[in-house]
């Protein structure tokens, strides 16, 4: 580019550096303003939550509200000291971790099969996986509640993790499918001709290349479980997750507890989305085909 433009003689009809026409200029301002407005639309409510969280419990309920946080940890301390909440937090982490592991463990092989093999029933399988998304999956918690009581899985983190895995699995399959499809088959074939078995070719070539993507989809599964409310509320009583716990206390809990809880719910989400941002779009690229 620069080569060509430098070598070429300066065009004689070079227009004088006229100022950008007002129409174009105003269009650019409008564009920039819209972008900033939309960013504010996302960020300002989050900021309000932050202000409330970093205010003392008294300040949260006073009126009018200060728009600047006073950096008081009172609300968070109250949250940490609230009966059962740390346990709920622990349960949330356990359930989400189990969901993460199970959905990748079950989902990734299927994603690999979809990306690498032509087999009878492949299209049907793919469509069925897609269609599970058209089901209001949390509803399945209702019959499972009965089933779990029979099998002793009721009110356990593992039982809830199973339901959350059902939620996360279709995503895990489609996302890993898209990730594996991004790795040329030729790389694997080259490994086979260089002395690898199917398995060693996978561990030596595919796995190192896919690991960051797998991590991203695992995080995605974690977030799905972390955020799920309905099934968690239906399936747990003593071993509530954070979402279920907060939902339960919505009616009676003081405002500052709600806000601190909401804040704790949001923080991992912010980090996770940041961690997977590179993959967010490529993951969906093929997945929605």
């Amino acid at each position, binding site marked *: 580019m620069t080569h060509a433009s430098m070598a070429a003689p300066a065009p004689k009809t070079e227009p004088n550096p006229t100022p950008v026409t007002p129409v174009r200029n105003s269009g650019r301002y409008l564009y920039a303003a819209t972008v900033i407005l939309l960013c504010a639309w996302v960020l300002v409510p989050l900021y309000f939550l932050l202000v409330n969280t970093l205010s003392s419990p008294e300040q949260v309920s006073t009126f009018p509200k200060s728009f600047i946080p006073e950096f008081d940890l009172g609300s968070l301390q109250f949250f940490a000291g609230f009966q059962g909440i740390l346990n709920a937090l622990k349960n949330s982490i356990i359930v989400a971790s189990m969901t993460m592991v199970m959905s990748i463990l079950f989902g990734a092989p299927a994603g690999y099969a979809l990306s690498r093999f032509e087999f009878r029933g492949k299209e049907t399988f793919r469509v069925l996986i897609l269609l599970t998304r058209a089901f209001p999956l949390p509803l399945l918690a209702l019959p499972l509640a009965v089933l779990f009581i029979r099998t002793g899985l009721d009110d356990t983190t593992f039982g809830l993790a199973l339901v959350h895995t059902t939620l996360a699995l279709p995503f895990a399959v489609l996302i890993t499918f898209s990730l594996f499809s991004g790795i040329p088959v030729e790389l694997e074939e080259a490994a086979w001709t260089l002395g690898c078995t199917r398995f060693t070719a996978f561990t030596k070539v595919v796995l190192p290349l896919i690991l960051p993507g797998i991590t991203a989809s695992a995080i995605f599964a974690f977030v799905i479980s972390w955020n799920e409310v309905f099934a968690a509320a239906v399936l747990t009583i003593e071993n509530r997750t954070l979402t279920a716990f907060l939902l339960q206390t919505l009616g009676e809990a003081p405002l500052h507890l709600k806000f601190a809880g*909401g804040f704790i719910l949001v923080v991992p989400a912010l980090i996770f989305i940041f961690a997977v941002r590179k993959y*967010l779009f490529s993951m969906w690229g093929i997945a929605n085909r």
Partner: protein
Amino acid sequence: MSPRLLPYALILPVTLFLCVFFLYPFILVSQQAFGSADGWSLEHFRDVVSYWKFPISMQNTLLLAAAVVPVQLALSLLMATMVTRMQKGRDLVLYVWTIPLGISDLAAGIIWLAIFEQSGFLNSMMVGIGAIDSPMPFLSYQNPGIIFLAIALAEIWRATAIMLVILVAGIGLIPKEYYEAAEVFGASPWQRFLRVTLPLLRPSLQTALILRVVLAFEVFAVVVALGGSQFPVLMSEIYAYQFDLQNSGAAAALALIVLAISIVFTLVILRALRVPKGATI
């Protein structure tokens, strides 16, 4: 293992898992819904439908979906097209716009509660600028319209990101040459959007809409956080049947109704946005 069987072995875990935790519960929920003391009956459905809260919760759910989804579609399309022509700061803007993707509906409800509650930021602001004299109880039963608005805003705020992600990914798959070709043939930016982007984006629009519409019928925690019992929706009714009324048959019947609505809308979207064979990118 023979290469013929390998793919089946690889999809076996998912298939088994979904059979046990998706198909089987689905059968169970149907049994519960249609079951009664003496064999099959529609008793639970009759109970559910004739309950006084059913029409209002159905109406609320549908109205909410009707208000939220089109706005989200327009907003996500706007954001997606803005992002694709962005040169500087694209990554940062995309990150900011996709933050709500990771935020649960419960957290979103709580966040908007901070704005709409009586001592919240909206009241502080309006009193501050002198629009009202004293804080208004926006979320009380006297203001069903504002409850609806708050819930709709929270939903739009939270769940536009998932559509945005799908659409940005979809736009990324459209080769740039098509736009250049359209431009050479004299299409204005708006025409390019209408004639190139939208038609080629159909598969992504399909996915985005299906996902969004189904999730819109599942709206639950936002509503509970902002409206409490003031604003019944289908999911909160299911929850109430299951726990407060301990009537799992009715809960199952209502769940099947939600399922049926979801499927109908999925089929409608699939049909409306179908891509002719061979017209894919």
